[in-house]
């Protein structure tokens, strides 16, 4: 009897060992099964603010499908659930509640918008629930505050950084010119104002617009104020639809200052899709932290554009697509680093302990640590080509870096490590 029991026990152990060797161990974490990991995101897929950003989920899925076809993360495939919040904060709250409570995602990924993320933080409170909010698609500097948003991780350089670096570019290239600024009249724009103020920039005209109010009609008002102030150089620091409205309306009204486009609204494909001719974009200044999307000498651009072309045939590989795929790639590394049985806690611990070493397309480093949830910290500036593509001036990326505080703007010496084999997490 004892012997039979012993044999049975041994057999069970052997089966268990065999199982463990072939499939991932069963995890108990929300959103993690033995075969998959479920992530969720909210962003505007429809509505005024959606153009351009609504390509991000397709881009992320393209990378995750590629990853899944190559074994996933420790044998688990990545499943992405997407909810349309229309860029309305209350919608973001409702949709995030659904993702967390109904869809039971392991983590939120790349939720878009400053106000939306603030609304979610206040109402859904992912931090209280221990839900990671990975790589928010906003440059609001406040989200790097680890005390206020302990489970939130930035990835984009902050708007403060962008404004400070932009100010440096203006000083070097447009000294003495009369400056104008159009900005979104919320924390997105306030963050930029903070950076410009920090850098000592003086504007002859500052034109705020309330989120959602951008249109050709309201843009005519902006142009009227900017031209009245005789602005030679105008910064458009808003979402893509605002940038497009500003450029298109100004062109129609024969107002042609030197344009500088903020990174959030500077995606050429989106602007052109809104009806703005490429010629209007020509010679405008833009900024990015990643390689130019047309730079096929870059390993990431080459790989990501190839993956995207196969996944979404006919869709242009633009900056929104690049950001989406790069975010997915960084996420995959974070999940891999979180261990064979990832939990929400181990995922966040992995980002904090290893995140600064994650490979990425970014030309600047990721700055994660136990005390920092800051992502990239700099930009290069370029000009839009006659076809509307943003390219570095003289074909060379000159990278500037700074912080969201009073730190100086300096040239970056960061050398991006080589892309891992096949663009998969190692």
């Amino acid at each position: 009897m004892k012997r039979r029991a012993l044999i049975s026990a041994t057999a069970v152990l052997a089966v268990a060992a065999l199982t463990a060797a072939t499939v991932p161990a069963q995890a108990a974490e929300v959103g993690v099964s033995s075969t998959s990991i479920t992530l969720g995101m909210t962003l505007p897929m429809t509505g005024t603010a959606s153009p351009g950003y609504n390509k991000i989920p397709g881009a992320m899925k393209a990378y995750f499908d590629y990853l899944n076809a190559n074994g996933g993360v420790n044998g688990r495939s990545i499943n992405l659930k997407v909810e349309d919040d229309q860029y309305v904060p209350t919608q973001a709250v409702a949709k995030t509640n659904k993702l967390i409570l109904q869809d039971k995602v392991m983590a939120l990924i790349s939720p878009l918008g400053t106000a939306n993320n603030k609304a979610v933080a206040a109402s859904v409170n992912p931090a209280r629930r221990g839900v990671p909010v990975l790589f928010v698609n906003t440059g609001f500097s406040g989200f790097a505050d680890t005390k206020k948003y302990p489970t939130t991780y930035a990835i984009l350089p902050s708007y403060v950084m962008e404004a400070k670096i932009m100010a440096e570019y203006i000083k070097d290239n447009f000294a003495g010119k009369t400056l104008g600024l159009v900005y979104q009249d919320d924390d997105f724009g306030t963050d930029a104002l903070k950076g410009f103020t920090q850098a000592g920039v003086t504007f002859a005209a500052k034109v705020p617009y309330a989120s959602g109010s951008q249109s050709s009609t309201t843009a005519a008002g902006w142009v009227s104020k900017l031209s009245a102030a005789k602005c030679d150089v105008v910064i458009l620091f808003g979402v893509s639809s605002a940038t497009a409205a500003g450029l298109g309306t100004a062109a129609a009204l024969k107002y042609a200052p030197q344009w500088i486009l903020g990174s959030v609204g500077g995606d050429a494909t989106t602007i052109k899709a809104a009806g703005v001719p490429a010629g209007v974009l020509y010679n405008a200044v833009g900024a990015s932290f990643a390689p130019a999307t047309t730079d096929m000498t870059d390993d990431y651009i080459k790989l990501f554009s190839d993956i995207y072309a196969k996944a979404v045939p006919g869709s242009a590989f633009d900056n929104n697509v690049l950001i989406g795929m790069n975010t997915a790639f960084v996420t995959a590394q974070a999940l891999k680093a979180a261990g064979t049985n990832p939990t929400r806690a181990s995922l966040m611990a992995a980002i904090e302990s290893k995140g600064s070493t994650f490979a990425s397309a970014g030309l600047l480093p990721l700055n994660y640590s136990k005390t920092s949830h800051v992502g990239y910290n700099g930009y290069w500036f370029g000009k839009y080509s006659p076809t509307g593509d943003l390219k570095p001036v003289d074909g060379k990326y000159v990278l500037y870096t700074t912080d969201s505080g009073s730190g100086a703007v300096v040239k970056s010496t960061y050398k991006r490590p080589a892309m891992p084999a096949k663009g998969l997490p190692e």
Partner: protein
Amino acid sequence: MRISTTKSRFLAVLSSAALVATVVIATPAHAAAVGPICDGKVPVQTCQGTTSDGAPFVMMVPANFNGTVALYSHGYRYNIDLPAGMLPSAPAGYKVTNTPEPIPGGNPAIANYFLGNGMAIMGSGFSRQGWNLDAAVATNVELVAAFKKQFPKTNHVLAWGSSLGGIITQTLAEKYPTLVDAVAPMCMADNISAELTAAGDVLWGLKTFFDPTIKGGNYSAGAAGNAEAIGDIVKVLTVLGSLKNSVSTGAWPATSSATGKALEAAGVPSRSALLLVGLMAGLPTQSDHFDSISGPDGALKLTFPLAVSPALAVLENAASAAVLAILATQDVELQAGGAVYDNTKTDYSARVEDSSVIYNAALSGNTVIAAMLSALNPANPGAPRAKGDPAAMAMMAKMAATTGKINMPTVMMTGVADPITPAGATQRVVDAYAKQLKSEHDAAIAAAKSSKNYQRPQKNLVVLWSTTPKSYTTFDATGAPITTTPAAPGTNHCTFSTDNLLTVAKMMVGAGTTGKFPLGGPIASAARKSGNLSVDKYFRAPLLKYYNE
């Protein structure tokens, strides 16, 4: 649930109409304790009387009384008569009444549940209306004693109540931990200072922006004060009506102050100013018919929820709360001897720091927000702050108040978008209990070090959040929002379904008779089946603004 033959017959006897007639029977007030005088009827006998403070009460006791009695405390009743046409809920006018209410709203299904299962119900109409927390608790203590004396078989006393009755119940549980076995404060009011701060903020904001003749407090004594309060009700409802009519144009009411008119001239829409007032006071941005999420098909699909709906929600909530805000202020001022609202040191910018980001578009952006907050700054002589009477405020501070201490199994239920007794009142108890439980846990660990026997502290609080649907604003063919449908769950004040109330009653009875709640599943399952109730332990309602969270 299967009911026995006897029980079925019993239920048949208790027809809804008869029951309602029975439970709302008017009882004349007495100068001293009288009764209970019981009619001895079967299957349910009704006992009536008054407590020593003259509060009328009713007890309903089934023939098969099993020893459990549920004491219900009703909500706030206005303390002055109101003329016809003032209240939608009482078009013929309102008369002060102290009719006993032994079950919520005379709901026959709730009565049937208790009586049909051998339990008694009772409730008082209290000796005075208005804010009567101290007196009501004393009345209830006396009522429990009278019941036990009349029915010595009593072995379990449960207490529950709604709104003001909720805080009466919680206060009873905190002050008399051995008197009751389980309690259920529902849509519980917060302490009076917090409630009247919210009321005062709304009234002050409306006065400062839209009609400087609104008194908003510091009412005279006697009939003159009544007239002033009634006058304020008319003015506030008129302002809200005007704001509703101009919500799309953004025009300001003709009665607006110089401060308001200056903002109007600067292009600030009145709806943004109204929303700011609501956010300053902590009014919910979801209301009976406005979810701040949905928009009509067409051009306003996005603009409506982003820029308009939050203001309409605040407007609807302000209209729901206005009468009570004014009359409760007047009532407490009478009791305290002077003005009790003081905003001389209130930092409204800090109050809206987070919400102004979330509702930025509806507030018309940071520039407009800054202009409005600047207009409300104490430095603006066009926006004089309200100064309270220190002695009256001190008196108010002495009125009974809750700490959030949990002494026995407690079920709380509240609407997440209740504009009158905000969910934050319940959250305050949740927060206090979290600290209490941790303290009990630490004490248990310390005790276990010597006894080697760890006794896990019992969790005694279940909170049922009455949630709003995912979206619920509806529109007619022209795209206009429909406001004639019933209030959405989780909105307005204590809008619980009979199923919700039964769920609470059953949890209270179960915990009161066993001494504890079942672990995990059954609670969540019961909440889910009840509809629109959540036991999400991570949900957090904002505290009332009074607490400067």
